[in-house]
């Protein structure tokens, strides 16, 4: 966008409409209060001060699906609950996202073999965007999941024909030992 650069006074920021809208959406992902079992405790810990979900604009847990953008399915989904999960998902306004949090919602978890009443993965009930494994996942893992949701939102396109490219997670891993910093030598 060189033709437009340097034409305005200071403190005027230029952006595309797409970027601006995606920025607004990704910074206000409101999750739904949706704790079903033990994973919910970890979700609450993520929302509390130590891990502070509010840093990502995702700390406003809504008690109504009408006001929520993100459903964090935190806990064991039973067959009895499955129809309710589906209904709550349908009541959420678009665009909506689902995080399957914990081994139970990813695929049955500890109840896979003997849980007669457990849905073997919440993706049998609602479409899932991000899977966060663990039993329960640590709050950092859930934060990571929310950052992946934000990646997904950032990749949204406004144009009708524009192809959305699902972003590759920018997770770099820590396989190599990080180089020792030299700041201590001073």
């Amino acid at each position: 966008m060189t033709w437009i650069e340097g034409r305005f006074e200071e403190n005027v920021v230029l952006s595309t409409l797409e970027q601006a809208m995606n920025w607004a959406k990704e910074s206000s992902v409101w999750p739904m209060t949706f704790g079903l079992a033990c994973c919910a405790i970890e979700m609450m810990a993520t929302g509390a001060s130590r891990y502070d979900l509010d840093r990502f604009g995702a700390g406003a847990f809504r008690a109504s699906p009408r006001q929520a953008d993100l459903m964090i399915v935190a806990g064991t989904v039973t067959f009895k609950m499955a129809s309710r999960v589906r209904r709550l998902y349908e009541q959420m306004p678009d665009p909506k996202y689902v995080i399957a949090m914990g081994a139970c919602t990813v695929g049955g978890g500890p109840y896979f073999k003997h849980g007669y009443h457990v849905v073997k993965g919440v993706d049998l009930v609602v479409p899932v965007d991000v899977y966060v494994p663990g039993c329960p996942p640590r709050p950092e893992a859930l934060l990571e999941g929310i950052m992946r949701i934000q990646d997904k939102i950032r990749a949204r396109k406004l144009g009708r024909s524009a192809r959305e490219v699902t972003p590759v997670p920018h997770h770099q891993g820590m396989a190599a030992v990080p180089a020792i910093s030299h700041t201590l030598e001073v």
Partner: protein
Amino acid sequence: MTAEEILNLLVEQFGKERIAGANLEAIDPWVEVSPDAIADVARFLKTDERTQFDHLNNLCGVDYCEPDEKKQKKFGHEPHIEVVYHLTSYNLKHKITVKVVLARWKDGQVGSLPEVPTVSGVWKIADWHEREAFDLVGINFVGHPNLVRILCAEDWVGHPLRKDYEFPLEYHGIRGK
């Protein structure tokens, strides 16, 4: 009262054939009562001033059954169902366990639930406990005011804590396995 005194009192009150057996050496000493007498025995244990069992700690069903043929030899029990009542008296601070032994199916017909009279008229809390035992183990508590499933969905098929229960392959279009 000790368990032995309670047993003697019950035998004196109801006769040997209705008090079918006992084990006083167990950690929780128990008395076995015949199914038709359980409501009377329960009312007696609650109201008599020597026993005063005003508190039903727990009521549960136990399924004695080994569906695996290889393990059946070692199992050591005839297939049957027990209803276990744990009683405590707040005033007299004594405890007793009462058991009722039932067939796994009424008249040997698979699918018809064994019957036992309800004690929900004696201890109010037995209402929910009996619903749970009905839901999960499949025991029909005759005379219960509202014997419907309490944990599983209303249209659930079978009683999940029966040892020979088979998992649903599908429930309302959701794959079960």
